[in-house]
C-alpha cells in the first residue's frame, strides 16, 4: 500500500531527479520497499487486508546479501511459530518484485506439515526486494523481506547446460535430511530435474524461438494427506528444489511427490520411510 506521504516523496524525488537530470538509481543502495511492483501485487493478492510488515514474530526470510549465481539463489521461508492446532501458517507466498513473474511460488501447508519452513532457489536478474508473506490460520497476514543485489560477472539466470537438462527431464530425487521420530518435524528434500524455462520470443540476433516449459505445480502427501501444495513458475531455478518438513506419525510409511509442468507432463516419486518409533 502506498501511503500519501510516500506518494508525495516519490513525486518530490521525481521532480528533483528531473531537475538534476539523473536517475533514481543514485539513491541509497537499499531503496524503499514500497515499490511500484509491490503496490500492484499487494492489491492483486491481498486487496486491502492489513499486513504486519517485517515484525518477525511469525515469519522470516533467509536470502543472501547478493545473488552469487543469478540462476541459483537460495531462499529460506522460515516459520517463527509452531504448526500446531491453535494458530499455524496455512499459506506462504514468495514474491520477487523485479522478476518478470514476481509471484515465484505460493505454498499451502497444514498442521501435518510439522513446520512451515520451506527452502527453495530462485532466479534473480535485477536488484530487487524479495518477500515472504505468511497467512496464519486466523486469517492474518505477516510479511518479511530482504533486498537482494544482482549477481556480477557474466552470471545469467539461464541454465548452464541446456542439452543435459533436457536429457534428464523429470528425474526426481527425494530424500530425508534427518532422523524420523514420531511427533517431531522431520526435514525432507525433493528435487526435480527440469529446465524450468520461461521460453523466449523470436530472438532478434540469433533467430531462435524456444517454447516455455516450466514446473507449475508440486504436491507432497504423507499418509494419504497433502502436507505441501505449491503453485510455482519459472522464477524458481532450473531443477526446482524444495526442502520442507513433515510430521511423522504411527502408520505413515511413505511420502509421495507429484510434479506437473506447463505441458501437463506429470512426474511422481515415492519415498519409503524407515519404521517410525512409537
Amino acid at each position, binding site marked *: 500500500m502506498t501511503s500519501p506521504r510516500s506518494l508525495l516523496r516519490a513525486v518530490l524525488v521525481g521532480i528533483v531527479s528531473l531537475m538534476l537530470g539523473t536517475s533514481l538509481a543514485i539513491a541509497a543502495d537499499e531503496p524503499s520497499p514500497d515499490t511500484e511492483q509491490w503496490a500492484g501485487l499487494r492489491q492483486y493478492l491481498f486487496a486491502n487486508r492489513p499486513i504486519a510488515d517485517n515484525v518477525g514474530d511469525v515469519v522470516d526470510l*533467509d536470502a*543472501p546479501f547478493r545473488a*552469487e*549465481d*543469478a540462476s*541459483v539463489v*537460495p531462499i*529460506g521461508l522460515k516459520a517463527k511459530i509452531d504448526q500446531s492446532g491453535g494458530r499455524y501458517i496455512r499459506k506462504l507466498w514468495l514474491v520477487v518484485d523485479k522478476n518478470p513473474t514476481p509471484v515465484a511460488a505460493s505454498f499451502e501447508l497444514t498442521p501435518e506439515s510439522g513446520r512451515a519452513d520451506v*527452502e527453495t*532457489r530462485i532466479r534473480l*536478474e*535485477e536488484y530487487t526486494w524479495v518477500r515472504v508473506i505468511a497467512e496464519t490460520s486466523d486469517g492474518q497476514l505477516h510479511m518479511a523481506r530482504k533486498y537482494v543485489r544482482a*549477481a*556480477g*560477472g*557474466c*552470471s*545469467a*539466470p*539461464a*541454465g*548452464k*547446460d*541446456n*542439452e*543435459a537438462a533436457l536429457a*534428464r527431464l523429470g*528425474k526426481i*530425487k527425494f530424500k530425508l*535430511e534427518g532422523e524420523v521420530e514420531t511427533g517431531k518435524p522431520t526435514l525432507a528434500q525433493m*528435487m526435480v*530435474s527440469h529446465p524450468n*524455462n520461461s521460453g*523466449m520470443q523470436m*530472438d532478434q*540476433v*540469433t*533467430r*531462435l524461438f*524456444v517454447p516455455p516449459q516450466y514446473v507449475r505445480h508440486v504436491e507432497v502427501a504423507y499418509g494419504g494427506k497433502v502436507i505441501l501444495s505449491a503453485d510455482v513458475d519459472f522464477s524458481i*531455478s532450473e*531443477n526446482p*528444489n524444495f*526442502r520442507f518438513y513433515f510430521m511423522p506419525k504411527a502408520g505413515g510409511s511413505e511420502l509421495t511427490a507429484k510434479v506437473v509442468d506447463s505441458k501437463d507432463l506429470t512426474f511422481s516419486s515415492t519415498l519409503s520411510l524407515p519404521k517410525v518409533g512409537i
Partner: protein
Amino acid sequence: MPALVLTLALTGASGSTRAADPAPVNEVAPGVFVHTGQIAEATRDNDGDTSNWGFVVGERCIAVIDSGGSTATGEALLAAIRSQSPLPVCAVISTHVHPDHILGNAALASLKPAPEFVASQRLPAALAARQSTYTALALRQLGADRAPVFVAPTSLVGAQTVQINLGNRDLTVRSWPTAHTDNDLTVSDETSGTLFAGDLLFVDHIPVLDGSLTGWLAQIPTLRALSATRVVPGHGGVASGAAAVAAAWDREHAYLLDLRDRVRASLRIGTALARAVDTLTAPAGWQLTELYHRRNVTAAYAELEWED
C-alpha cells in the same frame, strides 16, 4: 592512378570507423598478437577491457580471436590490427558467449568484405537465453550510453574440428563438451604452436564456473595433451614454454578438483546450499575470489547434488 586508389582507400577507412587508439599488443610469436586485458570486473573506467584477445596474421588474411567486452575494445582491437597489417580480417572467432569476450565484435561487423563470425553451434541458444541479462549488465557496468551490440555468428562449429586457412597458415578450431560454458571453443595456430584457450584456462584470475565442473575437470587432460608451446588464457598472462603451459593447466585443475571434493563432502553430510556457500572458503593465490568463489560453490553444488 595508384595515388587515386590510395586516396579512396584512406577515405573509406576513415569514413567507416571512428578513430580509436590501438590497444597495446604483444607479438608472442611471428604473426601472433595478443592483448592482455585487466584482471577486473568491467567498469566504465576500463570500458570492458577485462579479457584477453588476439589476432593471427597469415599471408592472405587475418583471424581475430575474441574482442573484449565493449564496442570500444573492438575499435581498439581494429586499430591495433591496422597498425600491424593491411590484410583483410577474414574470421572473427568467439571462444564462448560471455560478454567480456564478444562485445567487441560490434566494431568488426561493418568491415568490408565482411568476416565470418565463428562460434560454437551451442552459442546461439546460450546467447538467446542470456542476451537481455547481458544487456542490462553492460548498461549497469559501462554506462547507459554504451549499449552493447551483439553480432550473430555466421559460421557454427560442431563436433567436427574446423580448419581456417589464412594463407600459408592454418588455424584449428575445436569445440568442447560443456566445461567453462556449454559453448567453449579453442583456436590453435599450427605454425607457432600457440593455443588460444578462451576461458577454458584462467591464469591468476580465479576460474569461473558457468558450465559443468565435472565436464571441465574431464577436459583439462585433453587440453593439456594438445602440447601447445604457448597458451593464451581467457584472463591473465600468456604461459610460454612447455613447463609453464603444463603448470597453468595444473594450477587450474587443482582449484577445480578441490572445489569438487569439498562440495561433494558438504553434500554427503547434508549441508544446505546457503551454508555450503558460507563455509567453503576460497583457497589462496587467486585474484577476484571475492567476486567468483561463492558463485563457483553455488554452481558446483547445484551440479553435484545430482550425482548418485
